[in-house]
């Protein structure tokens, strides 16, 4: 990065360290923090949406929909994450390519499955093999978001389903007595009150999601844990900056990052919970009323 870094073997002490910490590989490491934060920022709302849809489906009076919701939550929660990330993603990718294959290459006669190989016409490749590497990375990242959303959506659906059932029955009956229909009762009475019951469960899920990002490397997205392991591993003289096994320091750095991040999340959740309890018929809401 700096001009003085051209020949690392001649450097010593702090100058060496400054060059080492700003080489291309470290810049990628710093960038991967952005990747992880972006993933969390996108995945959290999407999985919440999945969870909400799942919980609504499970509560539905229309039986097939209720079954669909319940099957989704129980099957996905039961499958180990790593299986999901190894096989589901490949299946999803192949499914997309198969659909494109059907649409784009009607004249293709060779079978798509040949032994263990999966072959679609070149135009159906997703993304096209001619696309630049960044497009491939964005595509992999999107696959990761979808997979994370499906997995965590199932857990969120279960939390929200429980929260919806925890809202006192009397509230709903009163709403009906005032002449609200089912839809109005759901959106005006049930949904605003359920969040305070859902919050502890959703908080837990968020904490688990923060720590689940190393699964990203299975999809070819290089996250902070991948880079820490790669950078920290002992480097022989083949590298420009040889050093012994420094993984301990890199992982300590990650530990600090994760602890700080989870601490900030905790504070945010605490505030949110205080805000949501305001005016609620719960013990916390009651305590706030007495204090005021």
């Amino acid at each position, binding site marked *: 990065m700096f001009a003085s870094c051209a020949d690392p073997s001649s450097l010593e002490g702090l100058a060496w360290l400054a060059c080492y910490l700003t*080489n291309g590989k470290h810049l990628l490491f710093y960038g991967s923090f952005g990747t992880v934060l972006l993933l969390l920022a996108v995945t959290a709302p999407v999985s919440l949406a999945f969870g909400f849809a799942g919980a609504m489906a499970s509560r539905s009076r229309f039986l097939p929909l209720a079954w669909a919701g319940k099957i989704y939550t129980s099957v996905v929660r039961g499958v180990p994450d790593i299986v999901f990330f190894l096989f589901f993603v490949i299946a999803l990718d192949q499914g997309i390519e198969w659909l494109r294959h059907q649409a784009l290459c009607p004249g293709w006669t060779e079978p798509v499955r040949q032994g263990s190989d999966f072959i679609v016409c070149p135009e159906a490749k997703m993304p096209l*093999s001619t696309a630049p590497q960044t497009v491939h990375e964005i595509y992999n990242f999107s696959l990761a978001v979808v997979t994370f959303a499906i997995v965590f959506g199932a857990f969120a659906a279960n939390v929200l389903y429980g929260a919806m059932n925890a809202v006192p029955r009397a509230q709903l009956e009163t709403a009906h007595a005032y002449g609200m229909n089912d839809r109005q009762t759901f959106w005006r009475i049930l949904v605003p009150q359920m969040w305070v019951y859902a919050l502890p469960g959703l908080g837990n899920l968020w904490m688990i999601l923060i720590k689940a990002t190393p699964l990203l490397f299975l999809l070819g997205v*290089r996250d902070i844990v991948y880079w820490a392991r790669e950078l920290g591993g002992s480097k022989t003289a083949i590298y420009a900056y040889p050093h012994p096994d420094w993984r301990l320091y890199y992982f300590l750095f990650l530990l600090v990052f994760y602890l700080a991040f989870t601490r900030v999340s905790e504070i945010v959740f605490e505030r949110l919970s205080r805000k949501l309890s305001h005016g609620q018929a719960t013990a916390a809401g009651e305590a706030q009323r007495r204090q005021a």
Partner: protein
Amino acid sequence: MKRLILSTAALALTTGFAMAQDVVRMGTEGAYPPYNFINDSGEVDGFEREVGDELCKRAELTCEWVTNDWDSIIPNLTSGNYDTIIAGMSITDERDQVIDFTQPYFPPDPSIYVAASEDVDLEGGVVAAQTGTIQASHVASTGATLVEFATPDETVAAVRNGEVDAALADKGFLLPIANAESDLYVVSDDVYLGDGIGVGVRESDAELKEKLDAAITSMKEDGSLNTLIEKWFEGMKGPY
């Protein structure tokens, strides 16, 4: 007029194919120096990077390098996320059932055991190897207790902190480490495993395999492959 449309369509089709075929995505692990590793500027580097680039030049292909986790490197090849595996992968019968290999561009892998002391029991002790490698299956067949790690680097770390008695890995990878560190010893002669290292391609990709085979042959004939092997593997004579 009709003919004109037809021939333009044919032209568009062929150029489309040519374009799509020309980029070959090279899958590697990026964690196995000197075969392949991520260098300090974050790019794939090493013996296989140079061999791969030269092969692509000779076969007139445009190549792009991709890294992938070792555990899922074969499934991602067969499902078409990249077109070759060039990651120090030895040719074995087990793998040959799922994918195809070109002729070897590196001789049967000499592997060595490295340990923290000079008197260890390699047959009855605890030995580390990377998951899903020929070394791992070799350790399992010797009667020693096998401990598997996701990366080769972790096998060395396990030796050093006493978790295992010894580690088995490619000589090209272990020897520089054992030479650089005073607390690690080479405790065996060369163990030859597998049928050499080849480029892995999908079984249905006969055309690409042929092109790469031809390019490897030409590199063997003019001695450039030997030069690369001697450059990256200290003290090794080019065998071709």
